[in-house]
């Protein structure tokens, strides 16, 4: 049953690539601020819903995508300015509640701006399946994978080669020292929200031809994205992608060989086991406590 195995794998990679893209957004904000933004899923939804509604209104796809990314970025920056920035000194738990509040708010807003229906988007390059040794692969999966790959490369370049990126990393390690070095940490934080919102939007748009979209689609994607980012190790883009793929493949294999009802549970058991042995995720920085 090689072809079945291959099909499970492809299914897992498809789903995993979706989770990976969602997880990357968490990583960026974490890198800049050590904040986990539970409204990240809503960025994904807003990007997708904006793009879909623009396309439905007759805007050409590339322009619709660009506009959707810009709209989502604006939402991200606004969220940072109005909700996160004023509460920078609050505890981690308080910030979690603020971003959860933001996610409820944005979802409620989306339900009013748009509607409660599901929406679709056409695949970027047709929907003729590609046959691989008896298993089929949809072209859109390649788009998702390619986007994830491109995003990692861009992020690696951004964080290692550009001043902005290095400033972001520095801010995450030690905000005070970064500020003393002349880094505008407020700007860095804003940039990180804008960037991860943009990334969420890109992810949301690329996956919509596979998943459809609706005002409440961000919940599940945000949850799985968070799982992917934590499994891979927070703040590590490569880790988020690896984490996403592992979760996706674990789910597909569990559905294929164990029980489809328990596939999500299997994924979470794997995450738990990994965390028990690697408390900072697969590729997370091991923080030595200085005492």
């Amino acid at each position, binding site marked *: 049953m090689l072809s079945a195995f291959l099909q499970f794998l492809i299914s897992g990679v498809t789903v995993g690539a979706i989770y990976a893209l969602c997880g990357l957004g968490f990583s960026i904000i974490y890198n800049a601020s050590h904040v986990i933004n539970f409204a990240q899923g809503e960025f994904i939804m807003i990007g997708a819903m904006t793009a879909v509604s623009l396309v439905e209104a007759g805007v050409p796809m590339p322009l619709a995508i660009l506009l959707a990314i810009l709209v989502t970025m604006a939402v991200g920056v606004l969220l940072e300015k109005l909700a996160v920035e004023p509460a920078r000194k609050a505890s981690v738990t308080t910030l979690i509640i603020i971003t959860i*509040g933001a996610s409820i*708010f944005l979802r*409620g807003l989306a339900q009013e701006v748009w509607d409660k229906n599901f929406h679709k988007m056409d695949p970027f390059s047709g929907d003729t399946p590609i046959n691989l040794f008896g298993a089929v692969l949809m072209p859109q999966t390649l788009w998702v994978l390619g986007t994830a790959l491109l995003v990692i490369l861009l992020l690696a370049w951004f964080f290692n080669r550009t001043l902005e990126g290095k400033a972001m990393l520095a801010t995450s390690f030690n905000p005070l020292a970064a500020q003393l070095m002349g880094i505008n940490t407020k700007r860095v934080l804003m940039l990180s929200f804008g960037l991860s919102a943009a990334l969420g939007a890109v992810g949301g748009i690329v996956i919509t031809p596979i998943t459809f979209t609706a005002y409440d689609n961000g919940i599940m994607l945000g949850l799985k994205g968070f799982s992917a980012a934590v499994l891979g190790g927070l703040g590590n883009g490569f880790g988020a992608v690896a984490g996403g793929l592992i979760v996706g493949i674990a789910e597909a294999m569990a559905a294929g060989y164990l029980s489809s009802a328990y596939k999500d549970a299997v994924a979470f058991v794997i995450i738990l086991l990994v965390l*028990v042995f690697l408390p900072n995720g697969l590729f997370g920085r091991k923080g030595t406590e200085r005492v």
Partner: protein
Amino acid sequence: MSGLSRWAGLGALAIFLAALPQALPNNYYVDVAVLACFNAIICVGLNLLIGYAGQISLGHAGFFGLGAYASAVLVNSYGWPPLLALLAGAAIVGLMAFAIARPVLKLKGHYLAMATLGIGIIISIVINTEAGITGGPDGIAAGPFSIGSFKLAGERDWYWLMAGLLLATVWLATNLVDSPVGRALRALHGSEVGAEVVGVDTARYKVMVFVVSAVIASVAGSLFAHYTPQLTPTKADFFKSIELVTMVVFGGMASTFGAIVGAAFLTMLPQVLTVFEDYEPVILGGIMMGTMIFMPKGLVPTIAALFNRRRP
């Protein structure tokens, strides 16, 4: 909190709880008050873990759900007396929490959040899937709560039971917080290594508080199973967990009375917000964000600080 002010707080709470039913025009209001008591009891327990010991749990609804389903299943399908089922549920949840606590509570911050979230989700998947036992997504009815021939019926009966239990839980929780055990919990929140070097076995205390808060949630769950006409898996899911944490943070972490206020406020809020119909989520989210931005320490500590400042 000194001994005197603790008794004053308990007394005030007791008077409030005793007087409240007079102000409630009909059983619907009593129902909301009962639900607030349920949430308050869980939150007082959860606050020991999150507020005092500084360990987040995004999976506590799982323990609430386990307790609830243990009762519903044992009473409904196996004919156990409700009280025995409640104790069995608490024992099962306590053992389970004990077994997972040590490895899980080694994790910190967002990793701990992820792990507890995962545990909660796994529990809710099991409840949802094992329909033969749990009734699946459509739920199960546990029937009324009875001890011997005494049957608890009607919202007002339930109110007195839950108000009494809330008072007892608050008494126990404040006792614990204001003891060497409670100081150890607060200390490990402040600095784990700082607590260790003066002899606090931080791992043991983390396990202990985790089990205590899980058992409180389980007992509340067991009773809830009898109170609700139909117990469904949504009571054990991720959203319920988030709601519980929100109540704790909203009311004020490391404040037992804050947990009660948070639970009461957020239980009532959706009932009030129904007038906004479809705009309810926007307003609920807005209130959550606004409160946490302007009162990052939560309602009760912030307002208490305000009062203290005004006092000469």
